[in-house]
């Protein structure tokens, strides 16, 4: 294994019931790289993210994060690794009973024994980084959609993680707020040398922030390459995704009939 990879996924296969969701997925993310995982609904991108976070065990294959194979690691090893991982979930996943600052501070309380004053300063600094300075005492319900995403990002980076995972940063945001978040993602990589994985179906955002893009479709990787390589790909399905053309499904009459009749 090269020392340059922060994430290495080999031959990852996973099922929900008998349905194969990811099919021999290979992915390598270099240290300090912004990798965007793109794909339509049902492509498997969210499932891939959950595997990268160690939230699900695959049917087969391996996932190495910072050199550790998380498919074989113990709960304690995974917990230690999570100190180096930050996650910003699509809906924010903030606890509604706590203030924004308390939400941001949660990982510090869980993983460190820092002085209370130090933790409060770190949380406020992170809120400043995401342009939410002074909003720490509000409850999540008092924030707009864009502010919730930024608060979730503040919590994701509060431990200065080596790996940052970001699920749909731009979804549901107005274009200006979305562009602000894109700039912030790039700045975090440049300043903190974070390795960042962004799952999105927003093309503008993907093309702006990505060093490389991997395109998933029906659980398979169609292509991993630079923005230019993806734009100029001759793969029809990639072009369909870029041009928002609906998929023309080929119908197997026997299979279709079986699905309808349950036979």
């Amino acid at each position, binding site marked *: 294994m090269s020392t340059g990879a922060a994430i290495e996924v080999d031959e990852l296969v996973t099922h929900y019931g008998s349905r194969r969701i990811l099919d021999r997925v290979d992915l390598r993310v270099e240290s300090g790289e912004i990798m965007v995982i793109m794909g339509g609904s049902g492509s498997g991108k969210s499932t891939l993210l959950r595997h990268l976070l160690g939230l699900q065990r695959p049917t087969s294959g391996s996932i190495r994060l910072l050199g550790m194979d998380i498919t074989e690691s113990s709960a304690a090893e995974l917990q230690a690794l999570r100190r180096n991982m930050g996650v910003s979930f699509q809906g924010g996943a903030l606890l509604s009973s706590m203030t924004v600052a308390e939400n941001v501070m949660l990982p510090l309380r869980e993983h*460190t024994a*820092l*002085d209370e*004053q*130090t*933790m409060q*300063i*770190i949380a406020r*600094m*992170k809120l*400043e*980084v995401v342009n939410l300075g002074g909003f720490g005492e509000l409850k999540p319900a008092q924030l707009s959609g864009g502010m919730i995403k930024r608060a979730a990002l503040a919590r994701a980076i*509060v*431990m*200065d993680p080596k790996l940052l995972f970001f699920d749909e940063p731009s979804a549901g945001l107005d274009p200006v707020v979305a562009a602000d978040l894109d700039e912030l993602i790039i*700045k*975090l990589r*440049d*300043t*903190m040398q974070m390795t960042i994985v962004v799952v999105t179906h927003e093309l503008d955002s993907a093309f702006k922030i990505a060093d490389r893009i991997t395109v998933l479709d029906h659980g398979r990787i169609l292509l991993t390459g630079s923005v230019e390589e993806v734009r100029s790909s001759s793969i029809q399905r990639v072009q369909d995704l870029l041009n928002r053309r609906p998929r023309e499904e080929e119908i197997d009459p026997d299979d279709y009939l079986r699905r309808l009749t349950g036979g």
Partner: protein
Amino acid sequence: MAYQVKTQDGYDIVLLTGDVDLSCSPDARKAILASLEQGHHTLVDLSGVTYIDSSGVASLVEGFQTAKKGGLRFGLIGVSEAALSVLELARLDKVFPIHADLAARLEADG
């Protein structure tokens, strides 16, 4: 991380070296606050710092705030490019008095 404290030209100079991260920033914090609690003007020399994380920066912030409350002078010297970019992320480069070295600080003090 290692640290040394020396006294020169009316300042306690806390020299931090190596990586200032979660594992050792509490020691840096104690050293900085100890100088201030003794009523000494304090500079933190970051010239030997290879990496500083948010807990390290938070210690600097707390030091600055303590100095202000006590009417003491405080500042950073020898800030490396890596440390400066971390400070810039939270716009703290606009908050801390930052000078190249002790001589530059003394000149600014007038």
